[in-house]
């Protein structure tokens, strides 16, 4: 595999492929779109490899490329993100993985996240899935920490509103 200034970009991309796919999936809410974004990101990483000065910084560098590819992917779609993930887990009696609910999956949260725009969903994913600090998120996204806090604040507010609306709808149905 090609090395450039001692950086084996191809090997680094492959080593980060699973995490990159998960991040893209969390942003795009669609497995196929996430795979497209990752494939584009891997080529983009190669093309821009000269901007990677420190191999130790590959992970945030590639993550930013993935996020940008996800942004492009959404732009290309030119349509709203579906309000619910297309992947539906079936509860199979006796299944080793257990039900979606048992695994901690929450369809109301799914809908609430899907209703957020990319920027707000991204900070939520980085904060609560990647468990990153506000400062780390700000550094990785190249935005001020105050902006991250603001986005988190508004995202949580909107998620809470969505959850309350779901509860009200369930109560109305009895």
């Amino acid at each position, binding site marked *: 595999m090609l090395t450039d200034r001692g950086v084996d970009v191809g090997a680094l991309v492959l080593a980060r492929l699973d995490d990159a*796919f*998960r991040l893209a999936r*969390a942003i795009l809410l669609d497995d196929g779109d996430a795979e497209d974004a990752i494939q584009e990101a891997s080529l983009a990483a190669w093309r821009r490899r000269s901007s990677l000065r420190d191999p130790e910084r590959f992970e945030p560098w590639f993550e930013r490329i993935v996020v940008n590819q996800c942004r492009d992917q959404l732009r290309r779609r030119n349509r709203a993100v579906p309000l619910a993930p297309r992947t539906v887990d079936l509860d199979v009696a006796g299944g080793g993985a257990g039900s979606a609910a048992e695994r901690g999956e929450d369809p109301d949260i799914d809908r609430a996240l899907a209703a957020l725009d990319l920027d707000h969903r991204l900070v939520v994913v980085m904060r609560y899935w990647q468990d990153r600090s506000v400062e780390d998120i700000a550094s990785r996204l190249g935005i001020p920490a105050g902006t991250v806090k603001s986005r988190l604040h508004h995202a949580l507010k909107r998620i809470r509103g969505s959850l309350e609306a779901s509860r009200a709808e369930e109560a109305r149905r009895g």
Partner: protein
Amino acid sequence: MDDPELEARLRSHLHARLDDAMPSAELEAAVRGGLRAEPVQGGGLRWVAARAPRLRIGLAGAAVVLMALVIGGVVTRPPAGTATSPSPSAPSEGQSFIVLPPTAAIPDKTATEAAMVILEDRLRTLGVGTFSGAAGNAIQFEVPAGGPSNDVVRQVLGAAGRVELVPLPAADYGPGGATAVPGQPLPKPEPPLFGGPVRVVVERATDPASGALSTSLNLTATDAPRFAAYTAANVGQQLAILVDGDVALVPIIQSAITDGHLTVTSPTGTPTPAWAVLLSGPLPDAWRGATVPVLISRDDAAALAFMEPGVQGAPETPNLDARLIAGSWRPIWTVEAHGSFPDLHCTRGPACPSPSTIEIVLIDAINAGILGYEQPSP
């Protein structure tokens, strides 16, 4: 606005949703495999992305995506023996064509402008309605999809335009004998008049009365009297007009032509490359023998090198692309002062590639001069 309960719920959900999510094997294979070379009809290679099939939109829709976005790029020369006659049935994909001068010497501006006009005329004759061109040290055309095949376009752009007048003896080409077919070489070689190529000036005019297009091939003052003597003695005989070895027309001599002006009738149907070249005339000497390599994009080359096994430690050069491919593609042309036009000094290296090697030339290097690489034969 702390909300520990909501935050815990989000964490639980996201980990449940994402921690075990895995990309498909197809994605990993596509990333690992990058691009693959695919032979094209008529010779040469193109690089296609080995993109994972998207089952939800159909295998055929996304199995392979051509990445021929020529925004800066590289060109390859087809291996010898593969790029022969054009294949008119091959659909044009629409792309850039770069006409490289025949030697490392840069043609002067006058010759290049004259060549540009001739090449534009050839494309119009072929029926390429809208295209754009630019000339520098190389001549570049952007030809839209839907016209003649890329092989045909390459053929007319690279044709020298040598015209030969070849008598077809009735003994060989009479009834039951061989047939001269426009667009193809003569099935049975015959010696040309005057021992070789002739210089002709093509004039085209429209008859104001009938509207018919009239094409006249005007011989030089030296050849005209010799042609007059020949035609006077061979009325009724077939005379093939060959362009770069291919038949463009097979007129029958109706009468002695004493003034050196051959009036010919345009062939019906789709113009052949030979006819298009004949009408536009030969290229200036400085451009005769130009090459029109197959183009692939720089991105494709990048991905190709990305996945190339055994490529190690490319040397530092001022040109990123040069560094990109220098590991497995060795330079055959070098530019002494890349990016500095006036000081450009371009030489063919001593290890000029044999025709069987693949040659890569970077478009942005072409804009600054010419920078070439070849992949050594295995």
